[in-house]
């Protein structure tokens, strides 16, 4: 009935709906939506007020542990005093310009390497022959009059970056090899690769770290000792290789069988086909997920603190345990560490999304 009535009205008599801006409709379109908006605003306002009060209004900007203890806000003097220790750990105080320089060089090189237009074989050689040796000499010393700093004194942010970056760089060829072995037509090699990958992926990283730090020394001939840092690094490489192998396998499966067959019909050997035809196509596809994996590894390096290495999280925690500051700046320390991890992870996440976009544009 209602419809016939509506039709019988003279044309133009029905009022058009009031024009609301898209903005208004999005936030207050329906009663429920308005309630959600108001509740969200209240939540944001409450959180913002809490954060502002803690970070600025009630915060202590100058003073010492006693002033911080008396106040309820953030304790900035703690960060100021402990900043160098948290970033560089037990690295000799006078020599801390070296890890700082190394960190800057590393981040700058990473920034340049992240731009697709610089991707080339020359960049790879530059990393292997120039950047990495310089970083090592800066950190370890022993050349050009730099004093030797043993790896047991390395710590903080440079160590976290090193464990994750070297881990990925060394795990990459290993992971590609494992992926090829898993896709191989030879059953014995396939079984070995599948066994390795599935075992490593089926157990937690902490168990592999335990294996490397507790069990590995038992497998070494007498008199041979491996540096503790190196052992943890090996564990991370093994762990990373298994996960990279799975990602690369996905890329290999995306390359049509015909590519391989075409290469073979040209008379190329297995390795030539892989190196010149299949892998370049497969690896290009797996770069974005690989960046995602790297974010995970960067966060996973925090686990080395359980086996007693002084990574960034560990130096922050030992700064918190300093008797002078104990129990005063717990939140400050953890939030600072969280902010650092968040910044690098989020930037890498953005980069991963940029790469996906980039490949979509350049490769249809």
């Amino acid at each position, binding site marked *: 009935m209602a419809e016939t009535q509506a039709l019988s009205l003279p044309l133009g008599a029905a009022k058009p709906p009031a024009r609301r801006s898209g903005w208004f409709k999005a936030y207050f379109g329906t009663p429920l939506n308005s309630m*959600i908006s108001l509740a969200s605003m209240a939540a*944001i306002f409450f959180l913002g007020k809490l954060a502002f009060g803690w970070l600025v209004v009630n915060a202590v900007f100058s003073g010492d542990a006693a002033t911080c203890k008396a106040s309820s806000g953030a304790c900035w003097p703690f960060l100021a005093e402990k900043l160098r220790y948290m970033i560089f750990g037990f690295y000799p105080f006078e020599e801390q310009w070296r890890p700082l320089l190394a960190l800057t060089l590393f981040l700058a090189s990473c920034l340049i390497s992240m731009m697709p237009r610089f991707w080339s074989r020359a960049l790879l050689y530059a990393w292997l022959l120039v950047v990495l040796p310089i970083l090592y000499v800066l950190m370890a010393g022993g050349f050009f009059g730099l004093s030797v700093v043993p790896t047991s004194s390395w710590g903080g942010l440079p160590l976290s970056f090193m464990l994750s970056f070297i881990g990925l760089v060394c795990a990459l060829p290993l992971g590609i090899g494992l992926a090829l072995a898993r896709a191989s037509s030879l059953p014995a090699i396939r079984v070995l690769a599948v066994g390795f990958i599935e075992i490593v992926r089926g157990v937690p990283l902490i*168990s592999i770290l335990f294996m490397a730090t507790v069990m590995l020394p*038992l*497998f070494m001939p*007498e008199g041979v000792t491996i540096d503790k840092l190196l052992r943890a690094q090996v564990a991370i490489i093994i762990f990373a290789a298994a996960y990279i192998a799975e990602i690369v396998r996905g890329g290999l499966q995306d390359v049509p069988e015909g590519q391989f067959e075409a290469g073979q019909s040209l008379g190329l050997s297995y390795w030539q086909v892989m190196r010149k035809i299949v892998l370049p196509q497969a690896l290009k596809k797996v770069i974005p997920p690989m960046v995602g994996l790297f974010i995970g590894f960067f966060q996973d390096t925090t*686990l080395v603190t359980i086996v007693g290495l002084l990574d960034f999280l560990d130096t922050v925690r030992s700064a918190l345990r300093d008797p002078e500051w104990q129990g005063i700046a717990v939140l400050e320390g*953890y939030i600072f560490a969280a902010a650092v991890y968040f910044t690098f992870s989020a930037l890498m996440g953005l980069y991963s999304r940029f790469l996906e976009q980039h490949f979509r544009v350049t490769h249809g």
Partner: protein
Amino acid sequence: MNILNDMRFRALCYQIGAIGLVAAAAWTMFATASDNLAKQNIATGFGFLARQAGFVISETAIAYQPTDSIARAIFVGIVNTVKVSLLAAILGTILGLFVGVARMSRNPLLTRLALAYVEVLRNVPLLLYLFLWYSLIILVFPPVKQALNILPGVYLSNSGLVLPAVFVENGAVLLALFVCAGVAAAILIRRIGQQRRIATGKSNHGMAIAALALLLPPLLLWMLGLVSFGWDIPQAGRFRLTGGLHVRPEFVALLFGLLLSVSASVAEIVRAGIQAIGPGQWEAAAALGLHRSRVMRLVVLPQALRLIIPPLTNTYLTVFKNSSLAIAIGYPDLVMVSNTVMNQTGQAIETIAIFMGVYLGLSIAISLAMNWYNARVALRVR
């Protein structure tokens, strides 16, 4: 023809070579290890499992005394690992569903809040969160001596939450039997009700009768006096609380950290899965006159589940493996108990082999269970 040019012969050689290399490496390691162990006077073999454990485990879901065997101690660790990962997976999935729905809301403010939630959780290491929650619990709540008595019998302090516990005084077996029978009956009734509804097109009270079948048998037992319950009320002593159910801060911090990380992953997985179902499905279902919530439940979700299950399996495997971070804050899971055993007996190889084997076995079990479920919801191609 030269045999070296025969593809099959070459393939055989490569494989024998690879196996030989691995076997040689394994044998060398084994020989050096047994040599080293003999020199350090460390026993080998799994005989140590039967020895008395001799250490206290702060949280035990099953009966355990320091006089029990090491094998029992390790089993307590396994139960603790499964307990915390299962709870984190269930609670995290529920929370993640809400956040995922908020991520897809048409309200831009809510969408951004949910995005911030996911990003803050995903871009900071889990271990950092565990330390943070743990120290917050220790800092914020008062020591045991000044425990807050929030409700009669409920105490909150920095050594955890103590609640009055209910336990079955007698008739536990009978109760368990009746509960199982009730669940079976409820499932059966619900299925029959559903089939009848589909056959006749009329709604019936299948769900209500099923709920009754679930609740009635235990209630009946209790009313007849065959089962009786007792209360274990915590007592505030001078230095500690005794009795009751003790929820420890290590457990809470670990559970909280794990469930938050699960919720962030689940939110993203659910969002991606539902957004992958094209708008055509929504429009077609709406054209049939279905309400938005029914479109979601009957049309979109069944299709999205196929995309959601595989990454969800990975999330559950991850939370199970991440529960091993418990050792950092002192929750006695499998790794922490094994670590204690390792320090006591010195038998590192056997202990690590045991806990790696347990993780591997349970990981495979989770994968199989999820694959079975995935096969059930998968698209049936005819």
